[in-house]
């Protein structure tokens, strides 16, 4: 077979299996053999699934898409940490060299009321999309591209906005949070759009509507533990949550429309 026949790793997996959202799930033990240190974590699961298919068993369902660390589709809580033990890395970019021969690896789905399990390790994260559709956009008609210096943007704001825009919406912040709060996600979106001139016009309405939607969807409340920041594969900072807190308070008490007059919204 392959060159790894003799030096591949043997791993003991404990994987959450759940038929569907309404059924109870359980941890099931699997053993995978001859795993090269060079394969990615998801490829290791592919190998396991190939084995299961050959044996006539149901393969383990998990989310994945680009496998380049930029789409936010992969999830998994590996040994108790969302996206596994490596910092600033998505599950798809995690490689098996981070593990040792004979290791036991516990693999679970992201858990939150707002992330119901679809099957096995796949969860429904459309709640994050719902938060986006409640205000995470710019609806101002910008017309044709303006002359490059017509709209001045502070360098600092451009940097902060771009840092926040790095959020891939994977939901690891929710998974890591002891309270399943989506504050880091919402904070990132509010910062990314609200720091730039085009997004400023609707900034107050946006922050208000996104927080309202976040609350309605059953995400928890932030307790400033910073677990979200610690596991975020894109390094989104806690300062974004502070900005969200600040702008929410301001939008609640001093709301203005773009002409600077007082405005009412529901």
């Amino acid at each position, binding site marked *: 077979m392959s060159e790894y026949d003799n030096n591949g790793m043997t791993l003991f997996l404990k994987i959450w299996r759940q038929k569907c959202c309404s059924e109870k799930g359980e941890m099931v033990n699997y053993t995978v053999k001859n795993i090269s240190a060079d394969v990615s974590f998801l490829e290791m699961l592919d190998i396991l699934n190939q084995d299961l298919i050959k044996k006539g068993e149901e393969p383990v369902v998990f989310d994945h898409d680009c496998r380049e660390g930029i789409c936010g589709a992969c999830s998994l809580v590996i040994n108790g*940490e969302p996206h596994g033990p490596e910092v600033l890395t998505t599950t798809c970019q995690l490689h098996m060299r981070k593990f040792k021969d004979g290791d036991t690896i516990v693999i679970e789905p992201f*858990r939150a*009321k707002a992330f119901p399990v679809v099957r096995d390790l796949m969860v429904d994260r459309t709640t994050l999309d719902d938060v986006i559709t409640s205000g995470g956009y710019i609806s101002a008609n910008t017309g044709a591209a303006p002359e490059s210096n017509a709209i001045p943007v502070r360098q600092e704001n451009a940097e902060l906005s771009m840092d926040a825009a790095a959020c891939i919406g994977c939901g690891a912040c929710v998974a890591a949070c002891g*309270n*399943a709060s989506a504050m880091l996600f919402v904070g990132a979106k509010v910062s990314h759009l609200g720091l730039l001139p085009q997004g400023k016009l609707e900034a107050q309405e946006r922050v208000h509507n996104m927080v309202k939607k976040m609350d309605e969807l059953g995400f928890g409340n932030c307790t400033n533990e910073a677990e*979200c920041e610690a596991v975020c594969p894109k390094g989104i900072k*806690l300062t974004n949550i*502070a*900005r969200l*807190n600040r702008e929410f308070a301001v939008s609640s008490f001093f709301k203005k429309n773009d002409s600077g007059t007082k405005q009412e919204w529901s």
Partner: protein
Amino acid sequence: MGCCSSNNNKFYYCSSSIGKKQLMAISAVMLVGFSIAHMIGNVLIYFGPKYINLYGYHLTSNLLLPLAELLLASIFIVHIIFAVILVVENYLARPVKYHMKVNSGRGANFASATMPWTGAIMLVFLIFHLINFRFGTIYMTSYDGIEVRDVYRLLIEFFSNPLNLVLYVTAMIAFAFHLGHGIQSIFQTVGINSPKYTPCIQKLCLLLSLVLSVMFSTYPIWSYIKSIQ
């Protein structure tokens, strides 16, 4: 959240996640302020019975005291009620718990993870503290013909029991952890977080919580020592 669709933004604010947290933060600022005043007032114990007793007399003889007590009680109630609501909501936000969950070591710590528990300990402590002292035995003494409550005697008597001493100091350890995460958390919740100042703010907050809990622990210890002398 029945009032979400209300046109009244301020009403909605109180039911929103961030609003509730900010109300907790603002009430926490006031409670920390009260703790500082309480700590400074208690220093008079070290100057002898006359000072602390007359301090107590002047405090209680002030006609505005019932108003101040009412205000303080309502601050406590706001802090406690919103804490309970938030803890319950947070619990419900993850109905199926993790089989295995470890903290990254770069975020949560013991103090932050035990906030509801240390808070509950503080609530129990608060109730007993009020029973023990505010509504405790009233001994009287007089200075220059003025009849005043002898809180000094109550203090020494109460802490002559080592069990009381141990319980109070234990409560102050919980207090230290609660404030250790709580005070610096206030800044983040109201939106003050800057890469430049936050590390310094966090250290000062930690120092304040340490000073408060250590100072509050010294009073029972000192009283106990006095009682066995």
